[in-house]
């Protein structure tokens, strides 16, 4: 499964980059979302995929039986998801404000507004 996921993630990265290179600021934000999702997935997959063994210790035991999925990347990705959301909300508000001032969805038109 991992090789297939590697290809999938590659495609996600490509779409993310493509969108981030657009002049439209909304597309930039969409690119940002794609990128953060792709990156989260990358961390998750690189640690190796495990089916049906969540990192939980069964009740009454002190350690899980047998191998479980690696909990560390999961912890990393969990916070990354929430932070990506925080950053996204910041970006989205920024887009709103920019739109109100510049009345354009074009990054090139915003270039000269700060002077």
């Amino acid at each position, binding site marked *: 499964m991992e090789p297939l996921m590697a290809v999938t993630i590659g495609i996600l990265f490509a779409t993310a980059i493509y969108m981030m290179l657009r002049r439209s600021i909304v597309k930039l934000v969409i690119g940002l979302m794609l990128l953060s999702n792709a990156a989260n997935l990358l961390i998750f997959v690189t640690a190796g995929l495990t089916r049906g063994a*969540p990192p*939980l210790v069964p*009740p009454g035991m002190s350690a899980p039986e047998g191998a479980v999925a690696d909990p560390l990347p999961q912890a990393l990705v*969990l*916070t990354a998801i*929430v932070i990506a*959301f*925080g950053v996204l*909300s*910041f970006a*989205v*508000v920024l887009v*709103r*404000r920019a739109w*109100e001032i510049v009345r354009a969805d074009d990054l090139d038109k915003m270039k000269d507004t700060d002077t």
Partner: protein
Amino acid sequence: MVKPGTLILTVAARLLLPLQLLFSLFLLLRGHDEPGGGFIAGLVAAGAFALYLFAFGLRAMQAMLKVSPRDLIGMGLLLGVLSTVPAWWVGDPFFTAQWWTIPIIDFKASTPLIFDIGVYLVVLGSVLTAISALIKTDHENQPDPEEATWNP
């Protein structure tokens, strides 16, 4: 853009909010042993308030919440930082978890729990800050009479 007052939405929101909040607390408290925890519970609670916001509008949600979402963030960070203090007090290294059992109800209190509540509040506060900011800009951009009457 958000017109408060659709019947199904208002009824659903009124009924769902307490359930969702209870569920978020449940997720928060069981997070140490089952899937859940501060991040998830915070998001669930934020979803609940967002639903309420869409049903009844910003001011209603603020009245419901009593405190500003920003204060939630502040409280959350404070709890997070405070949870480092007990370890210092007993002479353990910075951030070492401390566990106490509250005798009568047999509840395990601990600094990780305090910390997790901090996470919960920060997540809830941040999401609500962002959503209220956007709703607010909406209102200010489109001062229609109905919404204008909300103002003090």
